[in-house]
């Protein structure tokens, strides 16, 4: 009997994350309401605090949020097998759909209309990525330090597109050094505290 409920849990995990993989368009935090509905309202699997942890953790680690949150929730609910099954569930829709699209891609892109249509989409894609960067400014760039890092990273990568990994490493080092030193210098942070600036 216990074995059966265990199997059901894993199956549910798989199905819920299959849904997550299927309905993530563009990705990101749009998944949180679905998690809340599936794991805390329908089932008593996660607390509100754990929900906050999902956001904090997936945003502090590299990788794709749908997979990372699948690993996190899957592990909480079914240990390592749970994590593997949840992650496979999140991965599978992409593989199936993109394979289907990929098979027709080569043939379709000889078509003149399709080529023109996709020139239009490329304009929107550029706008969309820049818009999402601009929207991130409000929540991310809250201090002089953050502004300097963002501008330096942008300029560096603009002139040397091969440097992305080095930019990330340098930014990580800058954060570690700047905030590490500042902690020791100013235990009681005043108005000069970068993070507290408007």
């Amino acid at each position: 009997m216990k074995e059966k409920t265990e199997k059901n849990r894993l199956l549910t995990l798989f199905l819920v994350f299959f849904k997550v993989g299927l309905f993530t368009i563009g990705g990101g935090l749009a998944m949180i309401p679905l998690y809340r509905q599936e794991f805390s309202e329908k089932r008593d699997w996660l607390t509100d605090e754990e929900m906050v942890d999902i956001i904090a953790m997936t945003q502090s680690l590299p990788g794709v949020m749908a997979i990372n949150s699948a690993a996190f929730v899957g592990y909480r609910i079914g240990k390592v097998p749970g994590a593997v099954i949840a992650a496979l569930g999140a991965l599978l829709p992409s593989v199936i759909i993109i394979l289907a699209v990929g098979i027709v891609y080569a043939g379709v892109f000889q078509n003149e209309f399709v080529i023109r249509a996709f020139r239009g989409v490329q304009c929107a894609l550029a706008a969309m990525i820049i818009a999402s960067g601009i929207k991130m400014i409000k929540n991310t760039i809250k201090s002089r330090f953050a502004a300097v890092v963002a501008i330096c990273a942008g300029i560096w990568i603009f002139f040397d597109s091969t440097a992305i990994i080095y930019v990330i490493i340098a930014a990580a080092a800058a954060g570690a050094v700047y905030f590490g030193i500042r902690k020791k210098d100013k235990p009681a942070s005043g108005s000069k505290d970068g993070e507290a600036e408007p």
Partner: protein
Amino acid sequence: MRELWELISVFLKISIFSFGGGYVMIGYLQHEFVSRGWISANDFANIVSISQMTPGPIGINAATFIGFTTEGYIGAVLASVAVALLPFIMVLLVSVFYDKYKSNKFIQNVLKGIRPACVGLIIIVGVGFFETAAMDGGGILDIVKGAAFDIRAVILFAASLFVLLRTKISSIWVMLASLAIGIFLF
């Protein structure tokens, strides 16, 4: 066989540096595959557009698509697993030590450096796609020197940007509208 391993190792490598979501990952992929000449800038922009418009996280979709384009079915499956594998393992490790991880000051400081850098990166990734769409891959700085650009593409770009920043219309509708407009415009 060697190409397959090369493909997998690229995805493994970029996955551990992909902070800040799918668009940063797209930036890495652009560098790895377009700069090396494995995929043309135009094909890459189309692959990313399709990855954005189809269901599923854009990072996984793009990985699957690039894997399929370069190495067929097996490449598609392996690329999508490779791009997820190392972050997946990191999440498991962090889950075990979550409370210690959450309160670690050093990690928090490092992230305070990485997060703003990602904003700068994402905007420049977008500029790269603008160059592909409007300038046939030329650099925007060359405009000063009189490089040619397609005014229709610039207008469609500017209109899309305006709608995305100033209205609540979702990006999928903006892309579908541009798809239709593109047929008549270009």
